[in-house]
């Protein structure tokens, strides 16, 4: 009899322990030019469908309105998109115009986003820069922060369904909702020079992180230079400070937009701006230095 009791107790214990270990469901799919993954508790898996269709719908809205605007500058985008466009102003101010929602006017001369790639003549670049500064004949592209906005909207969809913990990750631009049962969400920041290594691991709860790098979308020019997808809208050239910039913020849109904006300004300027905005930053400079600014260390795994 005592043996039986022991067995029963043991079974209870196992069930109880398993119960504590909440299991999660992750769905991965291709959207917004990258792989998106949505992770929610197994019991809330139904919400994934809604979050996913939200992402698809908003991606289409951004694409359609951007294309219509680029064909006809007098086109009035739907409210959510025109609000998104006007929020781009903040990044232009932070960078003294180096960031622009019109920088595609110059990057498309190089063949971005899809090729064929080439190095344009200086005269073409000058014309493009002129057009950007006057706002005429421009090509708009919200890619620097629209992905972040869409991640935030997917998270809102998940929150509205009453789900307390989730992660939505769009190619490294992600939001961590709530926490896991036993700990915060953990995010590794990739080493730009070795993709099997990480330069930092951070803990997030109801916060977003995004990274911009020079190592994912680029081409090699005939003269041997590597040209990547981020351009300074005042020079028409790649910025030369970093291999990667990561930003922690309270929304994915802000993390996403600032990671591109900070890419365009030097470390001293980044330090001043992130202090004002209260957004932790991790810089990996072109000479291989790792700089942790504005409280980044506080988020690192203990």
């Amino acid at each position, binding site marked *: *009899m*005592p*043996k039986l*009791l*022991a*067995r029963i*107790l*043991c079974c209870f*214990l*196992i069930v109880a*322990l*398993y119960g504590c*270990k909440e299991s999660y469901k992750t*769905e*991965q*799919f*291709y959207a917004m*030019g*990258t*792989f998106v*993954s949505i*992770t929610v508790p197994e019991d809330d898996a139904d919400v994934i469908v809604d979050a996913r269709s939200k992402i698809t719908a908003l991606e289409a809205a951004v694409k359609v309105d951007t294309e219509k605007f680029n064909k006809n500058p007098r086109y009035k985008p739907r409210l959510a998109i025109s609000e998104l466009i006007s929020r781009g102003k903040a990044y232009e101010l932070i960078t003294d115009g180096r960031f622009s929602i019109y920088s595609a006017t110059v990057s498309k001369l190089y063949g971005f986003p899809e*090729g064929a790639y080439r190095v344009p003549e200086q005269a073409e670049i000058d014309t493009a820069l002129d057009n950007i500064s006057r706002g005429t004949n421009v090509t708009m592209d919200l890619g620097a922060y629209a992905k972040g906005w869409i991640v935030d909207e997917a998270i809102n969809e998940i929150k509205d369904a009453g789900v307390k913990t989730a*992660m939505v*990750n769009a*190619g*490294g*631009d*992600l939001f*961590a909702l709530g926490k*896991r049962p036993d700990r915060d*969400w*953990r*995010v*590794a*920041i*990739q080493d730009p020079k070795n*993709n*099997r290594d*990480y330069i930092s*691991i951070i803990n997030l709860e109801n916060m977003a*992180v*995004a*990274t911009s*790098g020079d190592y*994912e979308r*680029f*081409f090699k020019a005939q003269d041997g230079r590597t040209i990547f997808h981020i351009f300074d809208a005042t020079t028409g050239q790649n910025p030369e400070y970093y291999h*990667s910039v*990561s930003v922690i913020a309270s929304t994915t849109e802000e993390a996403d937009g600032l990671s591109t904006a900070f890419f365009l300004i030097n470390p001293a300027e980044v330090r001043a701006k992130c202090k004002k905005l209260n957004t932790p930053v991790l810089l990996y400079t072109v000479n291989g230095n790792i700089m942790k600014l504005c409280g980044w260390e506080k988020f690192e795994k203990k």
Partner: protein
Amino acid sequence: MKKSKFDILIIAVLTAASLFFMLDVQSGEKRLYLIDKNTKEEIKLEDRDISLDNGHVIIQVTSEGARFLESDCPNRICIKQGWVKNCGDTAVCVPKHLALVMECKEQDYDAISQ
């Protein structure tokens, strides 16, 4: 009912054994997946090459992991990303909407920001 020392010993041993077994399952499980646009399928870890019809793509699989061996995508980033062997490793070919991921029950982090 009175419990003897022997009962307590049994409880302790069984608890320890079940805990050990659980932890082992949690950390030991490693699964390789291929994501092809919207479908995600598990790839068995055994020596072979998989050739896909998305243009020209060859994935080399071993008992340890897998890698993109050949691809006609422009920057060959997926090839440079090398072997997908350890928990959380990924290799992604964005132009072809392909990715290899190694998922484990328990890993050091939940996501990578890149």
